[in-house]
């Protein structure tokens, strides 16, 4: 894909940011799901500093509004009645729909669910939109819920990577544009890993981006990729560092056995 310019970016990590709850508007505070609130506050932080309004929204999420899905099933299995509010929010695209509603963004509204590769997949799909859809708001968001804490100890070694980093919940948002400005971002994938699996995918990810297995100045190993939000968080961190040059951030999703990679040029 062609690189896209990052006009502005923001992030929200509830584990280290107690103040975010003060930024939730009153009309969203009491009734909206927590993951909607995270997506909203993260996007609001970004748009507060933006001179231009997004024309489209692309959200990347692995599990979506998991707490709402659980809440609905709790209702069905316990009381025999699932809450319609839980059901509406449980659809994977509910965050994207809510952002469109709150910020009046009436262009294309897509949600990509590619596990650990969701952020890369969202970036990649931006490139598929027409020029009239830019600037595009990209938001990566996932949440942790206590049920996952209970499940993780029971996971097999093959699957524990699937959820072991789930505590890195939060949201990362970026406003992308087709201009030649820097910093710039592009992605490849998800690509099916076949027999390569896991760490062996790193050279494949680099090859897919650059046509060679020589890594650029900075790249991250897949061993660090233990969270649905790894690639988004790492991209945000690199943007904060403002070091010149190129960085490769690979990701790998065990559930689909697929890898992806993001190149960030500062």
């Amino acid at each position, binding site marked *: *894909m062609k690189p896209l310019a990052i006009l502005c970016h923001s992030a929200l990590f509830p584990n280290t940011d107690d103040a975010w709850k003060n930024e939730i508007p009153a009309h969203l505070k009491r009734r909206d799901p927590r993951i909607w609130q995270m997506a909203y506050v993260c996007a609001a932080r970004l748009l507060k500093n933006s001179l231009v309004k997004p024309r489209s*929204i692309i959200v990347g999420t692995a*599990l979506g509004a998991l707490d709402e899905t659980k809440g*609905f*099933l*709790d209702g*069905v*299995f*316990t009381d025999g*009645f*699932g*809450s*319609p509010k839980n*059901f509406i929010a*449980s*659809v*994977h*695209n*509910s965050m*994207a*729909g*809510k952002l*469109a*509603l709150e910020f009046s*963004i*009436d*262009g*294309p*509204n*897509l*949600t*990509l*669910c*590619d*596990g650990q*590769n*969701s952020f890369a*997949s969202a970036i*990649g799909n931006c490139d*598929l939109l*027409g020029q009239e859809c830019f600037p595009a708001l990209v938001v990566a968001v996932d949440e942790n819920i206590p049920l996952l804490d*209970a*499940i993780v100890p*029971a996971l*097999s070694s*093959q*699957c*524990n990577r*699937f*959820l072991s980093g789930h505590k890195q919940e939060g949201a990362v948002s970026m406003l992308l544009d087709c201009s030649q400005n820097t910093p710039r971002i592009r992605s490849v*994938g*998800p*690509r*099916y890993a*076949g027999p390569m699996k896991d760490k062996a995918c790193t050279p494949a990810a680099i090859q897919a981006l650059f046509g060679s297995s020589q890594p650029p100045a900075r790249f991250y190993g897949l061993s660090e990729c233990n969270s649905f939000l790894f690639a988004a968080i790492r991209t945000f961190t690199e943007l904060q560092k403002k070091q010149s040059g190129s960085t490769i951030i690979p990701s790998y*999703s065990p*559930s*689909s*056995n*697929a890898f992806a990679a993001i190149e960030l040029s500062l």
Partner: protein
Amino acid sequence: MGAICAAGTDIAAAKRSVYEGRDNLSPLSLFDSGLKVAPLSGQVASLPHFAIGPHRTAQLAFCAVSEALSGFSDRKGLSLGFVVATTVGGMTRSELFYKAYKADPSELHQAATECAAHEPSALSGFLCETFGGLGFHTLSTACSTGLHAVGLAKRLIQNNTFDLCCAVGSDGLSLLTIRGFSSLMLLDPTGCKPFDKNRKGTSLGEGAGAICLASDKACEILNVKPLAFVCGWGASADCHHMTAPHPQGLGAQKAVRAALHEAEIPASDIGMIATHGTATPDNDAAEIGAMKKIFDKVPPFCSMKRSLGHTLAASGIIESIFAICAMKDKCVPVTAGFSESDEAIGLVPQSRENIAISHVLKNSFGFGGNNAAAIFSLSNGITR
């Protein structure tokens, strides 16, 4: 193209039933919904013996993709990608796990496999592994997902990411969706009646559809003649309500206008509309209201929901397949369930035979105010 649905386990078996507007709904028997009366649903009565996959959604997708790729056993080195549309994913298994876990938390040993299968992208990985795919994107935008998948697959061909790209929509019936739509009082206990004066809601269904798009180069190398062409795709958001459509269908209008713009044809060239037509009071009125704003004279339109059930993410692709077939067979399908016109809508679905159609419009709308439209044509474009 390939499809499996309540009307049949492949396109040839199902299309006549769709054209004739047969009622293929039956009381839900796949699982106990816990509702007092089993809702009328579009169920795949028996999966073909060859169906494989980690869960029902994957098994349905396997059948549809197998049919779509049946003529491509030798792809001659051409790359194959997938854009996979699903809302349910592995939920059918997750529900069973969670029910068992709630009853007895020591049942955690099931967690590993159930969690991995839960993710929507697990379906994409399964399809790549099974059919030799290079890569994929997994999309979930509720009931509009399938049509977005077609549009994105077209773009992936145009930008040379893949030589062949299969847009796949698949959703199995699940407790979550049956009980969810029931909680919203969106299920008609007597079965859906699209555009009818007495419509009270939709009927859910299950199924999968696959449309394989090919580049010009791939068509030449494989020596295949395209069945039809994807000429336009449009997408928009209502910005109105999380579940209710905009009353005047403003978002729907925007999506259709974008699709017409991309197809570079005037609205008057559209010969048939395969509507979303869910049979909920608000949706049908808003959809036809939007079409009236776009067309000076609204072309013949139909809804396939009573013949297929609302197959959620799969509906955009399955219904596009039958719309393409109908265009080639020169007919507009009968809208099963419709009997009495609704003055508030002001138009009625009309079936046609021996009608020349060059371009068909397909609409799909979803929760979150999500709108998609696509235009399929008999000539010009890029798809097989």
